[in-house]
């Protein structure tokens, strides 16, 4: 066993050796170790490099507040950068790498930056790199050249580029009380709340519950606090109404007490079970939240305070008590409050030599003095550490006499040999979640800390989160908070009794020891005390300016250790109080959250797909599918050797010559029913529907309230009070909401009910001169001749025993029918139609052919109804009824909507026998750059028209109709195409419509 290991105690299992690698080097630890504790036990002190100066850094903390010891965890192809070593539970086969160093951690070329510290002061980059005003490096070029180097030097770990094999899941939960934090306060709160029988959840970011009880060395009810905690947890685990969530960080409080938490389900395991997520993203709706999140220790700022071996006192104490690891052999302590004496005692108990306890205070409490004596350390009150020495690890500290009131140093410098310096600068309650919930922190002068405000609404606080730092207070507050959270009064029985030294964590108001040398405030971002003073000099005084100018507190630890010292130094420089400088509002997340967990199962292949009942048939027939929103629709049914253009031209030609069939199941379909249904349709469509006879359909156009075109489609009157409205595929949801809004909000008096029946009906359009023959061959129980089924007529019948509704309407301009049946019969109906169509040469056609047929006819779709066009722009002015108001009628005649300069729908015919690409623009003369601002419109849809034998297109062109018969050019500089076109009417084929009426 490592000489740094204690013989007994703590959470580790000394019988279980765990093997892992760090920078390729095999290492061992014990079950229960974190990477940090295992590295310390292995004598590794250099773990990382800092952001800017690439200074050597070691383990500084023991928890989520770690600013320095960041590593990358390698899991097969996946990489997780920037993970604090303090948060990694080691397991057999764990692979970690250090980061931000080149070529190696021990020898890092980037460390040269440290030599230019004066030049690389806060905000230096704003003042230089602007480069020359003229020449090849003018404009932004010089900066971008410099930036290339800066970007490579910056950053921390490297992200992976392989797809992550791990699974991430979201979990929704509801509870009456969510307790955050499981120290004595949290445990008591959970117990008190659970006693009511209400649903309680207890979340703890560490693997083990108990918080401070695990390392305080105190007793509770005469048992070691740790054992008391284990018993409390066992009791909670036995209750049906309690859910315990270890390794779960509550990182966000959102509105309505919606709580976001990250559970690291398998990060501590060598493998994941089938279906087991790596991370679980909890979204918890909690009646009340008990915040028992404890407090974070602050360091003191002094020259050399970043040397590996310098660490927070609590961390040093925790390593000894909780992990059985001595962070050093000869340890010095430097503090401004009593709490570090507890750490010193723990370290001493674990077998370390305590070289000195340096306290900035002239006087300390009796309890602290007693602990100091017990450790056998030299107790230097009224002293301060003014420097440290050692290459890549601490070797020695320098101490001088210090006056806490004035900050003055005096007397000779003394050097003390030490390989670890445990530092405490006081405590900051972890008020982040309360701050996120909207509460402004208040400064407590006695505790020298920001405390949460009085609780309002969703949460109550307990324990050191509230600034109550003794275990007895934590127990009492936990009990009270737990009871309050369920609206009960705390049980009258005697609360558990804590036993331990009576320490006072109230710090002396000392944050910085000003002496020669770089003193770091933000250890990760290398923000020094001088940087803070420079920010002050340059006027960046408000806390947000300080942060943004120096990057203080913006590192991965989010300033957990650096915020308050930074503010204090600024306050001192500005001659203000700390609250006058202000505190920043904390934002989610409390600690970093994997993007995978937030994305959960929602990304990638698990995004929903919408499939028509005939989907599999299309696939089997070799259809190339196109995504249309969430839908998939056949683009073409290509034959071997065919190009897309050949395929759709063949399909479209087959429709014009014979008969084709297309899946129209994706069209939005809304059942509009009720005594006022017809009146309702008169209001929402620009044209009249109340006059529509039963068993007839009509083409309708809707506008938005602002008078612009919204959607079109046919609506079928199936009964006196029953209509089936169809919408475009893309707008189905929007039209439904639009109609529901008007019924609920504007016309609640109308007795109309809307139901989405898009999914109820499968639809096939059969089009072409032989369409009637196909139907006649398979439809039973009704005739389909012109008399029974005239244009826009509706009949009901059967195909192969399947009930169908047939409407004769045409999007292609051919004789055509839409045949609908229950979706569960869709495939059978489709196959029956195909079978019936065989003798007539029926051809299935896809979206491209559908588009070709409609372009030839000049029918509009979403490409033309693009939210900017009016009915008149699209030559649909004839549909605007003058007999009645309708949605949009009041605003559709505004001057801007009636201007002759507007873009108007036209047809284009290519004059050079080349395709007119969609998205091309139209110009009168030259192409750019010769004709700036020359665009007079754009192509909305294009095709090769087999019917016309030409490349044609639809376009929106300024003053379109007036240009009919004129020549223009299409201009497509992106794709290098420029060519002549003739502007024609959008009705390019069979303008009289004789074919569909045939």
């Amino acid at each position, binding site marked *: 066993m490592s000489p740094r290991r204690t013989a007994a105690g703590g959470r580790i299992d000394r019988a279980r050796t765990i093997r892992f690698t760090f920078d390729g080097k095999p290492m061992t630890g014990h079950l229960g170790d974190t990477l940090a504790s295992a590295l310390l036990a292995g004598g590794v002190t250099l773990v990382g490099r800092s952001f800017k100066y690439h200074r050597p850094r070691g383990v500084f903390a023991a928890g989520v507040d770690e600013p320095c010891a960041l590593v990358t965890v390698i899991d097969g192809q996946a990489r997780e950068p920037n993970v604090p070593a303090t948060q990694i539970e080691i397991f057999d086969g764990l692979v970690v790498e250090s980061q931000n160093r080149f070529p190696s951690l021990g020898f890092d070329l980037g460390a040269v930056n440290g030599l230019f510290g004066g030049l690389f002061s806060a905000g230096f980059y704003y003042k230089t790199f602007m480069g020359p005003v003229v020449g090849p490096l003018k404009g932004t070029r010089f900066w971008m050249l410099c930036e290339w180097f800066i970007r490579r030097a910056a950053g921390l770990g490297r992200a992976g580029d392989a797809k992550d094999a791990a699974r991430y899941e979201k979990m929704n939960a*509801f509870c009456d009380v969510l307790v955050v934090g499981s120290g004595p306060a949290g445990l008591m709160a959970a117990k008190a709340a659970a006693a009511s029988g209400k649903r309680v959840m207890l979340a703890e970011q560490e693997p083990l519950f108990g918080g401070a009880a695990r390392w305080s060395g105190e007793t509770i009810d005469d048992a070691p606090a740790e054992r008391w905690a284990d018993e409390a947890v066992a009791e909670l685990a036995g209750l049906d109404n309690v859910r315990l969530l270890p390794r779960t960080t509550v990182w966000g409080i959102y509105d309505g007490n919606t709580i976001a938490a990250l559970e690291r389900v398998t990060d501590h395991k060598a493998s994941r079970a089938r279906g087991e997520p790596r991370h679980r993203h909890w979204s918890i709706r909690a009646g009340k939240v008990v915040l028992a999140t404890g407090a974070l220790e602050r360091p003191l700022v002094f020259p050399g305070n970043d040397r590996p071996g310098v660490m927070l006192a609590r961390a040093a104490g925790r390593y000894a008590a909780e992990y059985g690891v001595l962070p050093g052999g000869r340890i010095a302590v430097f503090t401004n409050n009593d709490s570090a004496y507890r750490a010193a005692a723990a370290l001493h108990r674990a077998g370390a030599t305590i070289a000195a306890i340096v306290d900035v205070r002239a006087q300390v409490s009796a309890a602290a003095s007693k602990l100091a004596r017990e450790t056998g350390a030299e107790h230097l009150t009224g002293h301060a550490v003014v420097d440290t020495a050692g290459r890549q690890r601490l070797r020695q500290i320098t101490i001088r006499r210090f006056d806490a009131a004035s900050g003055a140093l005096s007397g000779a410098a003394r050097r003390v040999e030490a390989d670890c310096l445990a530092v405490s600068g006081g405590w900051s309650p972890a008020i982040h979640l309360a701050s996120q919930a909207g509460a402004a922190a208040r400064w407590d002068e006695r505790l020298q800390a920001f405390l949460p405000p009085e609780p309002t609404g969703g949460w109550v606080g307990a324990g050191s989160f509230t600034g109550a730092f003794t275990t007895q207070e934590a127990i009492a507050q936990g009990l009270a908070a737990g009871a309050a959270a369920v609206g009960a009064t705390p049980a009258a029985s005697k609360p558990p009794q804590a036993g331990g030294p009576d320490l006072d964590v109230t710090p002396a108001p000392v944050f910085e020891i000003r002496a020669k040398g770089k003193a770091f405030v933000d250890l990760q971002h290398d923000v020094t005390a001088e940087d803070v003073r420079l920010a002050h000099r340059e006027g960046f005084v408000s806390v947000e300016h300080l942060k943004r100018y120096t990057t203080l507190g913006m590192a991965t630890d989010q300033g957990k250790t650096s915020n308050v010292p930074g503010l204090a130094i600024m306050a001192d420089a500005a001659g203000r109080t700390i609250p006058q400088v202000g505190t920043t509002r904390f934002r989610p997340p409390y600690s970093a959250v994997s993007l995978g967990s937030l994305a959960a*199962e929602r990304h990638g292949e698990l995004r929903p797909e919408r*499939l028509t009942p005939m989907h599999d048939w299309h696939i089997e027939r070799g259809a190339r599918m196109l995504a249309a929103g969430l839908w998939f629709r056949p683009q073409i049914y290509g034959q071997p050797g065919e190009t897309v253009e050949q395929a759709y031209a063949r399909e479209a030609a087959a429709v014009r010559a014979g008969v084709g069939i297309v899946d129209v199941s994706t069209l939005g379909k809304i059942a509009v029913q*009720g005594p006022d249904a017809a009146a309702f349709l008169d209001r929402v469509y620009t044209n009249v529907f109340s006059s529509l006879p039963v068993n007839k359909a009509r083409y309708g156009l809707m506008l938005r309230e602002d008078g612009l075109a919204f959607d079109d489609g046919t609506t079928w009157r199936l009964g006196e009070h029953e209509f089936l409205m169809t919408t475009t595929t893309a707008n189905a949801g929007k039209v439904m909401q639009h109609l529901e809004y008007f019924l609920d909000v504007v016309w609640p008096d109308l007795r109309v*009910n809307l139901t989405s029946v898009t999914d109820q009906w499968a639809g096939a359009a059969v089009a072409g001169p032989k369409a009637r023959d196909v139907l006649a061959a398979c439809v039973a129980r009704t005739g389909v001749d012109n008399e029974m089924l005239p244009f826009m007529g509706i009949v009901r019948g059967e195909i192969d025993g399947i009930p169908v509704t047939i409407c004769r309407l045409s999007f292609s301009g051919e004789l055509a029918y839409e045949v609908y049946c229950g979706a*569960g019969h869709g495939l059978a109906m489709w196959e029956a139609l195909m079978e019936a169509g065989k003798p007539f040469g029926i051809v299935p056609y896809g979206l491209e052919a559908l588009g070709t047929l409609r372009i030839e006819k000049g029918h509009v779709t979403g490409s033309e109804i693009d939210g900017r066009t009016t009915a008149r722009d699209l030559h649909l002015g004839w549909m605007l009824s003058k007999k009645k108001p309708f949605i949009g009628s009041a605003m559709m005649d505004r001057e801007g909507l009636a201007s002759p300069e507007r873009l108007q729908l036209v047809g284009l015919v290519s004059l050079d026998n080349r395709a007119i690409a969609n998205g091309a623009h139209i110009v009168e003369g030259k192409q750019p750059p010769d004709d700036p601002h020359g665009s007079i419109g754009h192509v909305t849809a294009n095709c090769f028209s087999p019917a016309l034998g030409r490349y044609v297109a639809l376009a929106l062109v300024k003053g379109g109709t007036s240009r009919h018969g004129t020549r223009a050019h299409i201009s497509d500089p992106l794709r290098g195409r420029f060519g002549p076109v003739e502007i024609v009417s959008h009705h390019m084929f069979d303008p009289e419509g004789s074919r569909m009426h045939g």
Partner: protein
Amino acid sequence: MVEQMSPLGDAYVPGSHGNFADGTGVKISLPQPGSIVEATAWPGREAALAGAIERVTGLSLPHHPGGGVVTGDRSGFGIGPRKWLLTDAAEGLAETLRDALGIENGTVTDLSHGRTAIRLEGERAEWVLAKFFALDFSSDAFPVGSGRATMHHDILAQIQRTGPSRFNLYVFRTFARSFWRVLCHGAEEVGYEVR
């Protein structure tokens, strides 16, 4: 009558799947009721609708929001203001109910093809559903018989608790295959059986 075809296609794989370390967590199946019907009453005509439903189906629907009942082959639950979703193992409910109700009282819409019913049952049913829906599935909050209209991302779902650990989910048919896949994916963790 021609039988309805399932929308699931090759996504439907009978058998046992996922992690069975702790037994089968849930069973997932496709009950395929003959009728799924949405019935809506005009304001003030809720009693007339409830009466018609009771006459036709024997279901006595509670009036509180989300309330519902399950009896043998039939079920019904509230899915919105004055709106119920009714199912029957037999086909033809929509026509019968429409005749019984009358347009002066409300409307009946046949969704037998438009919605797909998916049944999820087993000890871990609540756990699996909680992965998808921000609903409180505990039996106090969501008692047997009652129903909820909710959504999983883009997929609207109407859910009825038909037993202490059994739920019927009604989703839009064209989303059913996709939803089935994610449901199975989410159930892998607890082990699931498809039948």
